[in-house]
């Protein structure tokens, strides 16, 4: 009956998420003054609080001193190993950029309330905890907190009808998938001798049990909904088109990478049943093919990026599959690297979309004609992002895809690698269509391009440069991600 006690490592480990929650709360309470008018002026103080909070949270990732993990914290609920911190880093950097962009974006749409900023920070804190969670309860509560925040973000602009309808569909799909996720977790909990912690589940060695395999399959279905893998992707295009552009960017980057980090950690520990490899192979192949084919004839930029996001979830399934099949986990090292590259690229792409949506809400590819003449920097940023998404050399996307496919071939999944390469060749076509429209078409855009908010220009610039930098000098990030994968099993 000894009283409660918190060790120093536990307090330090929870600092990143804690700072994000505190920033969210401060932003919420600081904006309560002017409730009446929908303020048009950009609330820079919110962006400042958010930026400082994110920077302090990023710094607190390294306050631990050593990068080594100090074992189980909070009775096994969380860990501060390198893999978790790498995921937390990606989430915090994304929340920094999204906070910077949201000031200008929200004020232009006349809906500039602090709820948007604080929900971004709350869901960022929940995602950081999700990347570092090592027991089933904390994974579940973290996923539900971030999903609730993102449902509200998706329906943030209450006035336009399609946003509220898309948000509602997203809510029902999300709640449905968390039902599956929960039932899978209950079965995994029950069949591993009643142990909630992932290490306990790994130690219990129940993975040969039939019901355990069904449990892991249900958890996989739950995550597949969240990430948007094909059989469970029907909500992705509608929500991506209806929701505010920034909320979509947040979903595409942060929610996807946090879910993949958590799925990776869960599957590494639970091992998965006998049939999991075939299911993962089927999921990733179908996702890659359908995602890319559907994106081919998309006219709307948002829907095209939605399907490209689905296709990239298919690519990201490959390292999970590869690591699970072989017993050598380091093969799956391409996942953290690809997620970092994907985060930087997609942030740049959604930065440009935000810049466009500030001046017009039409978003089909035709509107990009001649963007290079009127906005050369924006056009350059968008071109870099699209090239990296397509996997053309000299960009981070290329290195990521190279790693994924070489790992897959190394582990003997030749057919998947071939399908992956073919589908990314197909994707080159629909990624380059906007690039052609921007550079080689004469501008006929009827809307006057007001200059993008400073936050958006800064984000597109930094993310574009980061994509090129990682493309040219990738080995530090490759090494970091390879080491981090080894620390998962502790």
């Amino acid at each position, binding site marked *: 009956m000894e009283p409660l006690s918190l060790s120093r490592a536990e307090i330090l480990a929870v600092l990143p998420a804690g700072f994000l929650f505190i920033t969210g709360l401060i932003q919420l309470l600081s904006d309560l003054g002017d409730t009446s008018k929908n303020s048009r002026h950009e609330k820079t103080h919110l962006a400042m609080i958010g930026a400082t909070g994110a920077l302090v949270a990023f710094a607190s990732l390294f306050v631990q001193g050593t990068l080594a993990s100090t074992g189980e914290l909070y*009775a*096994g609920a969380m860990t501060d190993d390198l893999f978790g911190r790498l995921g937390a880093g990606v989430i915090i950097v994304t929340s920094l950029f999204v906070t910077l962009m949201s000031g200008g974006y929200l004020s232009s749409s006349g809906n500039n309330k602090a709820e948007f900023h604080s929900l971004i920070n709350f869901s960022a804190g929940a995602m950081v905890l999700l990347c570092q969670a090592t*027991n*089933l*309860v904390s994974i*579940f*509560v973290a996923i*539900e907190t971030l999903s*609730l925040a993102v*449902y*509200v973000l998706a*329906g943030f602009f*209450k006035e336009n*009808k*399609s946003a*509220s*309808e*898309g*948000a*509602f*569909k997203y*809510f*029902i799909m999300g*709640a*449905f998938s*968390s*039902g599956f996720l*929960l*039932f899978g*977790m*209950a*079965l995994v*909990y*029950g069949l591993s*001798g*009643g*142990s*909630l*912690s992932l290490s*306990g589940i790994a130690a219990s060695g129940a993975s040969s049990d039939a*019901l355990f395999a069904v449990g892991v399959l249900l958890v996989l279905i739950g995550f597949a909904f969240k990430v948007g893998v094909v059989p469970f992707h029907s909500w992705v295009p509608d929500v991506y088109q209806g929701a505010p552009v920034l909320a979509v960017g947040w979903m595409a980057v942060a929610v996807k990478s946090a879910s993949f980090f958590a799925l990776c950690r869960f599957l590494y520990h639970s091992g998965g049943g006998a049939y999991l490899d075939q299911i993962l192979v089927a999921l990733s192949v179908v996702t890659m093919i359908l995602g890319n084919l559907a994106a081919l004839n998309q006219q709307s930029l948002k829907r095209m990026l939605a399907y490209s996001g689905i296709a990239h979830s298919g690519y990201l399934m490959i390292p999970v599959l590869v690591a699970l099949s072989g017993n050598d986990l380091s093969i799956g090292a391409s996942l953290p690297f690809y997620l970092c590259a994907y985060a930087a690229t997609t942030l740049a792409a959604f930065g440009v979309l935000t810049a466009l949506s500030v001046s017009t809400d039409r978003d089909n590819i035709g509107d990009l004609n001649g963007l290079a003449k009127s906005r050369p920097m924006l056009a350059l940023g968008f071109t870099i992002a699209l090239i990296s998404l397509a996997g053309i050399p000299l960009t981070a996307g290329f290195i990521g895809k190279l790693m994924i496919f070489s790992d897959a071939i190394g582990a003997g999944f030749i057919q998947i690698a071939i399908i992956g390469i073919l589908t990314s060749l197909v994707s080159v076509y629909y990624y380059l269509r906007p690039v052609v429209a921007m550079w080689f078409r004469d501008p006929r855009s009827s809307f006057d391009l007001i200059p993008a908010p400073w936050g958006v220009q800064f984000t597109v610039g930094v993310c574009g440069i980061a994509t090129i930098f990682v493309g040219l000098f990738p080995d530090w990030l490759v090494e970091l991600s390879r080491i981090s994968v080894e620390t998962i099993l502790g």
Partner: protein
Amino acid sequence: MFSLPVLLYLSALLFSIGIYGVLARRNILVVLMSLELMLNAVNIALVGFGRVHALSTTSGEHSGQIFTLMVLAVAAAEAAIGLSLLLLIWRKWKTIDLRELCRLSG
């Protein structure tokens, strides 16, 4: 009759009834209720496993029950957000029919 397999069959049956409710019904209210039903079905399996492993588990005697308490909190917060979204839909579209909602919004 009151044994672990029966508990699991019961929770699987309630879970599938919830799935039927979510997919078949057009009245959004009943869809939201079926979502609550699905989460509740899982609670039975959780508490059942918790009771069976009560003396032998490493994660603490009440681990199943604490997980269920968290599921309770999540289900309540989900119901709150779901019903406010429903109210928003009702105010904008004046319908609570899921299929019509899809048709209207194109």
